[in-house]
């Protein structure tokens, strides 16, 4: 993929630096999403391959969560209009998922005999799954605002 944006030879800054969701601080957001995508994918593959029968619903949910994290990571890293929209949808699903599954895992623990990324609001992952979608949506909003604002 060629970089469409010219780079300032003195600062190395790209001119869309502050509006692209995958640049500047966005690198850290993308890295965090990538990490969670990796963790969730790893866990769900392990659960499905090793002991699927124990709690199929939990494990399918883990796989779904993993897929959504992968989509969000790719979307934020690509950072063009379409991909950012895709990422926003993925992140909203993620936020709803973590809130819903988090609440249900307390209200009806027997529905989830084994843990998913989202159970207990992402407790097993240091609550990163709860914090990250909020961070992601704020980050996308900031990028959008700066993009629509005049430069300078």
């Amino acid at each position, binding site marked *: 993929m060629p970089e469409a944006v010219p780079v300032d030879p003195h600062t190395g800054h790209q001119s869309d630096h502050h509006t692209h969701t995958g640049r*500047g601080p966005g690198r*850290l957001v993308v890295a965090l999403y990538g990490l969670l995508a990796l963790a969730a994918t*790893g866990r769900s593959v*392990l659960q499905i391959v090793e*002991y699927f029968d124990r709690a199929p619903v939990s494990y399918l949910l883990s796989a779904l969560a993993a897929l959504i994290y992968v989509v969000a990571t790719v979307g934020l890293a690509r950072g063009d209009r379409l991909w950012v929209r895709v990422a926003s949808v993925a992140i909203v699903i993620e936020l709803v998922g973590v809130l819903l599954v988090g609440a249900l895992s307390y209200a009806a623990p027997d529905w989830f005999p084994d843990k998913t990324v989202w159970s207990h609001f992402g407790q097993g992952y240091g609550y990163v799954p709860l914090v990250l979608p909020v961070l992601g949506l704020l980050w996308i909003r900031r990028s959008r605002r700066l993009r629509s604002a005049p430069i300078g």
Partner: protein
Amino acid sequence: MLAPLTVSLLVASGVLGLVAAHHLVRRRLVDDPLILIGAGIELGLLVQLVYGISQSGAIVDGSERATFVAYLFTVLVILPAAIFIAIKEKTQWAMAVVLGGAVVVAVLLARIQQIWALNA
């Protein structure tokens, strides 16, 4: 697991974190020392992978053993990914990503050690 290897790897990721923090404050980007430390850690992680897999039979519980092996592989991916992202970024955020990567490697090393200590 090999205690000397685990300790050296933890120290090395601490050093990488410190260098990244230093570069972050000094507004420096990815340079050779940083990459060399990262490469050194990766070498150690490869040794840990081979040794860990060869010893993984000692973990009786099947799912714990699978998790152990999965972590041995996962920890290898973190630094190359972090440094790849950092090379493309030309601001201080590059070093924030490397610093984060060093922390994640240290956490995973601790998890690997924990699974080993509890199950083998």
